[in-house]
């Protein structure tokens, strides 16, 4: 049995704590914060609102009238010890295939990213479509699938002037991360393409079809084909 993954707990106001897993192993940290979030979810503690797990951390939100940072901190540490015994529930990842039209009006920052990386546009697309990405967490906006980025030589800088609106389906990169925007929202990441698929369906629950741990792969789509896929919903590949 491994020792529990070491965590540090930081105050984040009167209604939240940030729990950071800080083992040297990134995969282990990621698994630990997601297992903790799932454990907190099932624990159904009075006053505990929810948990937002990302890469190496989880934000735990609570009602400071019903409980307190001190109690939640103790409960989180208890959870980490419990998980050490039971382990995280295993789930088979599903695969999602996402057609993307790169560049032009669909990906206004593609050339800029290529220039920054010292690569051609074709090489950027080749790297972006080269492998399946693990969906690490659901983020802003609206349950975006946050993924480790493609194997570019350099981290991609964020835009100096974030856009006021990025369309739904925008496929972006920043730092060493990659993402799809399920809904139109402001954004500071470099947009390199757009998928015609609909990612978000407010009439379904959950609103987005993937979960952390699922796999996602991008496929290049000629611009002429965009309309053929428009409106289809993103779904796991059979």
């Amino acid at each position: 049995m491994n020792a529990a993954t070491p965590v540090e707990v930081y105050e984040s106001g009167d209604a939240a704590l940030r729990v950071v897993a800080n083992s040297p192993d990134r995969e282990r940290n990621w698994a630990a914060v997601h297992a903790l979030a799932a454990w907190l979810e099932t624990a159904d503690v009075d006053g505990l609102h929810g948990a937002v797990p990302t890469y190496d951390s989880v934000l735990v939100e609570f009602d400071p009238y019903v409980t307190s940072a001190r109690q939640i901190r103790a409960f989180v540490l208890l959870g980490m010890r419990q998980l050490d015994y039971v382990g995280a529930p295993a789930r088979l990842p599903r695969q999602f295939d996402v057609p993307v039209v790169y560049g032009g009006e669909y990906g206004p920052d593609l050339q800029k990213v290529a220039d920054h990386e010292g690569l051609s546009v074709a090489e950027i697309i080749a790297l972006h479509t080269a492998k399946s990405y693990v969906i690490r967490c659901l983020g802003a906006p609206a349950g975006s699938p946050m993924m480790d980025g493609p194997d570019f030589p350099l981290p991609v800088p964020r835009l100096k002037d974030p856009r006021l609106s990025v369309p739904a389906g925008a496929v972006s990169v920043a730092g060493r991360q990659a993402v799809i925007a399920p809904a139109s929202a402001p954004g500071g990441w470099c947009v390199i393409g757009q998928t015609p698929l609909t990612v978000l369906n407010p009439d379904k629950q959950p609103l987005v079809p993937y979960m952390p741990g699922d796999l996602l792969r991008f496929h290049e789509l000629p611009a002429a084909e965009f309309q053929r896929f428009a409106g289809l919903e993103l779904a796991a590949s059979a």
Partner: protein
Amino acid sequence: MSGTLTIQQAGHSVVTDLGRFKGSRYGLPVNGALDQFSARAANILAGNLDNDPLIEVTALDFRMRADADLLIAVTGAPLTFTVGGRKCPQWEPVSVLAGETVVLRGMNTGLRSYVAVHGALDAPMLLGSCAPDTVVGFGLKLSEGTVLGARKTVPPIRQPYFDLPLFRLGLSRPGTSDSPVIDVTDGPDVAEFGDTADLLFNTSYTVSGRSNHIGLRLGGTLPERQSTAEVLSRGVPVGAIEVPSREELLVLHRGRGVTAGYPVLAVVTSRSLDVLAQARPGDTIRFRKVTVAEATAGHRAAMRELEALRTSVNTVFGLLGVGAPASWRELKPASGS
């Protein structure tokens, strides 16, 4: 028995509740009433549960017509509140007769008012909440002609003395100011700002017109991040203060995206988030540092006030039979008069 009300002038108003607390794990912001104290108070005064759907009116004049006898309460920013042309008190239950028009106008300080209707309003729900989510495109935004269903009607409660307020429940209302002091606790990343972190407490900041339910943008002397290491996206709490640009401070409110890649300098307390909800563009804000223990104590004191209010309301409504089967009743003049 249920009734309806018809929106005649929507201004900028929505049906909301305290928020989508189960949304964060799906990447959805909590949203909900930005001034939580006022929203809770309105619902309590109307004899509802704290979290029942109610109307949030932002900045502009608002008018609706009751199509049945209703009991309502208006809280939040001070304004002129009339029912059938009669001036009525905010922060008290008010009886509205079928056919009467309810007007909220002249909001000059503060930014948001709340209208709760006894029996609560019907609204579509997403993950257990009716709170609008502008990013997902969910929620009930009101416009002229919108008909809202109220789940209960309340027969008119008549006040025999024409000019005396019907109720005087005596909740101490939060004051509004155009230069509020906002309490914050140290953020988890305060160390990244080095010595410049204290600038937050030595400067006053001006609320920019680009502020909304997602966040307030504040101009002033900005603390600066000292490190340039890349930050992985992390969950950020409502109230997080970030410095994303050289121009403005960003204070995240209830519509904030659940994750972000900026270090968190400080976090606004739950109590002060309600104050920020009432801040208007051009208002001047100063920050004051408190501990999490002090912040928690402040929040609990406010919640206890609301508990006491609920007890009074329950007693009064019990005596009046509000919530009981419909029947016409008149209050007897007090003896000795």
